[in-house]
């Protein structure tokens, strides 16, 4: 009795509407970016990344040098004017990118790691572990984040590092929630069950089967949260709890300018910088989210608030 298949042996994987080959991964990700807002987002982010990388070349002045007259309005020499101690605002805005961008990334990476691990463990382990971890998450959620951040920053003294710590403390729970809900919905999927039946241990299944599936949505959330992180960071700096002078941090610069708002240029330009980069992250994140499957994007939106 030969094992000649009854079914049509020539059946090949069909070309579904998506590109039918192994390029698919590469083709699929940029698809989200191809949305006009996604492109705009990428472009603005790329712009700021370049600005940050080439700040020394781009900035016309030393961002710390106080050698111009104070409060010069925008002029051909100082495109964005000078501030209260005679520094060039443009140069400071340019150097500001070197601060906000990397810190936002570090922040989000830290939050993703802390929140992701806790959420994944809670979701996958379930039971008591889940209950306890989720109560902790609830606690941090109910905690008024900015008050917590203020208290931490006040306690540890204002500095960018402490602001980062403070923000991580208040932002990891949302990653924990998303990861948990994603893991929870994945945990009961049949491919995990199948994999376990084949002898995969539960820890291994978590790493091998769950993590890759959670990574996408979490990445999207992270993109959106990059914007939120920049906002929170600049907010803390605005309150004097973040960047320490003379660091050209955008929030701190707005705060400097706020006191003498009739010299509007000091506050307005760094504000535009913050707005543009946050907007870009949101554009990109939004476009990426559109590319996600509905279930993941639902867990995302549930967590985002």
């Amino acid at each position, binding site marked *: 009795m030969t094992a000649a298949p009854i079914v049509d042996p020539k059946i090949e994987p069909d070309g579904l509407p998506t590109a039918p080959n192994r390029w698919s991964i590469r083709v699929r990700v940029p698809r989200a970016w191809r949305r*006009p*807002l996604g492109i705009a987002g990428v472009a603005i982010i790329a712009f700021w990344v370049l600005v940050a990388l080439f700040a020394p070349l781009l900035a016309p002045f030393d961002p710390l040098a106080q050698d111009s007259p104070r409060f010069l309005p925008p002029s051909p020499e100082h495109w964005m004017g000078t501030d209260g101690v005679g520094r060039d605002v443009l140069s400071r805005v340019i150097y500001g990118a070197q601060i906000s961008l990397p810190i936002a990334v570090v922040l989000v990476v830290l939050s993703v790691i802390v929140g992701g691990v806790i959420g994944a463990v809670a979701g996958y382990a379930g039971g008591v572990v889940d209950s306890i971890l989720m*109560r902790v998450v*609830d*606690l941090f*959620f*109910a*905690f*008024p*984040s*900015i*008050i*917590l951040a*203020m*208290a*931490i920053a*006040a*306690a*540890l*003294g204002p500095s960018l590092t402490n602001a980062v710590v403070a923000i991580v403390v208040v932002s990891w729970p949302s990653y924990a929630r998303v990861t948990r809900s994603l893991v929870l919905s994945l945990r009961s999927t049949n491919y995990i069950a199948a994999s376990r039946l084949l002898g995969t241990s539960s820890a291994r299944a978590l790493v091998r089967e769950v993590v890759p599936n959670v990574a996408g949505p979490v990445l999207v959330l992270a993109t959106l949260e990059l*914007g939120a992180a920049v*906002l929170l960071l*600049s*907010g803390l700096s*605005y*309150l004097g709890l973040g960047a320490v002078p003379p660091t050209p941090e955008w*929030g701190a610069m*707005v*705060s400097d*300018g*706020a006191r003498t*708002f*009739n010299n*509007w240029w000091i*506050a*307005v330009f760094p*504000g535009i910088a*913050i*707005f543009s980069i*946050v*907007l870009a*992250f*949101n*554009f990109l994140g*939004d476009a990426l989210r559109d590319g996600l499957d*509905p279930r993941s994007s639902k867990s995302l*939106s*549930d967590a985002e*608030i």
Partner: protein
Amino acid sequence: MFGRFLLKRIGAAVLLAFGIVVVTFALTALLPGDPATAQLGERAAADPEIVAAYMKANGLDQPLYTQFFIYLGHLVQGDLGTSLQSRNPVLTDLGQFGPASFELAVTATVIAVIVGVGLGIVAALRPDRPLDHTLRVVSLGGVSIPIFWLSLIAVFIFSTQLRIFPSSGRLNPGETPPPHITGLYTLDSLLTANWATFGSAVGHLILPALVLAAPMVGLLLRFTRSSMLEVIGNDYVRSANAKGLPPGLVVRRHTLRGALVPVITVLGSAFASLLAGTVLVEQIFAWPGIGSYAYRSASNLDLPAIVGVTLFVALVFIAVNFLVDVLYGLIDPRIRTS
């Protein structure tokens, strides 16, 4: 059924409140500052006798864990301690500043709901049209704008330059606040038919509320849109259309009702976080609310006030979430019965 649900909720709230007190106290243990020095003047702080008297008077001479248990003892009696700064009971302070923030947050929420949900519906009814794309940019813009910066610009344009709105406070200077009924000046002045005060209260409220509403508008717009779209694709909306119902009725009764549940969740969380997030706006608009109280307490190491505010905001958060759940039940019968 409902009683049990309520009990469970209250249990969770108590647990959460306890957790928050513990964490806040633990946090204060980290605070390097000394409340006595923070509160006492230059000369007084140099006098150990005065410092000792101050510490004793405020229970600060006890070890932290003793303070913690004393605080807990008072807490169960509804006493949140006395603010070191204002020297009022923290509860009194919260009673004063809470309504101010509440008024601001509620107004902002109402604005955001009207604008955000309204535009969200508009966008969802005509998806992928130019208007929809424009609204998407508006919504993303709303959530991206640094609120402190927006406040500054709003004050500069509307108060300093155009002088349309006052820039600070809740009433004109010297104006007597309306009798305390709810603590919301607009409502109280309306209730007592005090039109001049009402006008002034509204005038002061508009600008900060608009600024505060901006990110929420963005959030609600996006949520309403996606939630509406999801529901519009549902069979039950198709059913309603197949029944030949007028489009207005279909949107109102069928689509909106289905789409509202997720929007209410967002609204609940957004409102709760607004109360805490008013810090920056209240700061700039000199709005005497919880946010500025929290900021002052944090920077003055006013421990009872910090714990009190944190607890208060957390409880509001819990209460709002509870309210959201109740609303769910009202809207969604599946939850009501299960």
